[in-house]
């Protein structure tokens, strides 16, 4: 854990891997901006997928229970596929908004990374001039 980020095991619910971001001793403004943005986006992603996956599990259980009430103990693949289709259709809008929102955030992160690299490059040039 010296001077790089470290990545953890995937979260059991959201399936995303948590990242511990390394904080350098003399953190510059651009580095700080990038780090905070990445934390913010990771948190946003984690919240979305935790909610979404929990809802999926809950609704699947409810569907199975509904089937067993009708007298079907083990649901066949075809019966389950009806639920899968229904769940996908109900979440179409959620996924569309999430998708484009994520693209925007991802591009912001890359822009900040470019800023950081540019800043570092300028620093290096300054060092070599002396």
């Amino acid at each position: 854990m010296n001077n790089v980020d470290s990545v953890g095991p995937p979260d059991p619910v959201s399936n995303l891997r948590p990242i511990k971001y390394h904080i350098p001793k003399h953190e510059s403004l651009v580095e700080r901006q990038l780090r905070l943005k990445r934390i913010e986006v990771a948190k946003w992603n984690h919240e979305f997928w935790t909610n979404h996956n929990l809802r999926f599990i809950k609704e699947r259980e409810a569907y199975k229970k509904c089937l067993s009430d009708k007298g079907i103990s083990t649901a066949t693949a075809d019966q389950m596929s009806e639920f899968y289709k229904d769940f996908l259709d109900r979440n179409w809008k959620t996924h569309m908004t999430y998708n484009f929102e994520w693209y925007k955030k991802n591009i912001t992160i890359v822009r900040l990374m470019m800023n950081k690299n540019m800043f570092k490059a300028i620093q290096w040039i300054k060092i070599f001039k002396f």
Partner: protein
Amino acid sequence: MNHLIRAIQRDGYQINKSSYTCLTCSFIRRQISQSTLKPKPLIATNVTVDKHLPISSVIRPPIVPEPVIEKNCSDKEWTESRIDMKDLHQHYLKLSKSRLTSLVVVTTMAGYAMAPAPFDLVTFILCSAGTGMVSGAANSINQYHEVPFDAQMSRTKNRLLVRGILTPIHALTFAAVSGSLGLVTLYYGVNPVTAALGAANLFLYTSIYTPMKRLSILNTWIGSVVGAIPPLMGWAGCTGGVIDSGGLLLAGLLYAWQFPHFNALSWNLRPDYSRAGYRMMSVTNPGLCRRTALRYTIGIFGLCCAAPFCELTNIYFSIAVSPLNAYFVYLAWKFHQNSDSKTSRNLFRFSLIHLPALMILLFVNKHGLWSGNSKPKENSEVIAVNKDEKIISSIFKKAEPL
């Protein structure tokens, strides 16, 4: 029939028997070991083959537990995302999905080899390398966009960017360098038409297909167009930019092949797709998924019969490829009638054998390959047909136990 048998007895028996079977075998083995459908049978078949050997009991134990331990380690511990320069080339290979890219390059090579213009080795190599680089760029941009989605599915959860080994900007820099290098190679080394096709395909894959997976059921059709363009690039690279009926037919074959292949693959991943929000045909319209798989295998049959009329192949191609296509249709029919994990797996696996076999048959029966442009001689016909029969029989021998 008698002359065929005589030809087999005379000289056909030795011709390339082992090399063709080996090619198909190794291809399938690689594909199966990669796919998450069912990795176990590979080990199981090895064991059954080696059962009578005394060393098998010594070899067997370390094979099974090794990957399990490795997986547990990477799944439970915190790891530093420091990049070792020694592993960098491996990371880049993974980032460009080397297996998929090599399949794309093979179809480009097939397009080049089948085109009616004279074969030029330098252009051929530049065309393949350029296409490979553009494909690598497309795949890394795709992975950059897909991080949280890839994390949701067991098939893709171990990709580099998901595991945080490379930073997004690293992947994009790689894509920019590789993509521009590839396009420049195609533009100056091959011709502008090929470069334009490459650029269009790059755009189609990264900017239309990738987001469309969550938006519309049409994504499979777009994805199939993406798969059909590489042979066109090879064709255009060889002819200097002219694409005629033969090239279009080849692209059509690749386009049609994607449907039975992908529909069968996606059938078993329905729960994952549903949760991760992918609007795949297998989830949103299972009936259509079965029907298109069947329809397009029949389409492949038809296209193969039409190939001699486009002066792509000789007439023997249509005859030789018929049993292969008939079996493909039969498996798609089984999948259509009774869609479960077994029939879909059979169809998926056979699609992996079908494509390389089809490529080999296409090339072996290329129009005018054996005789310039004049009528083929008696002798070479017999040997060509004879070879095809053997390839098919070897394929069927492999296909049935699956």
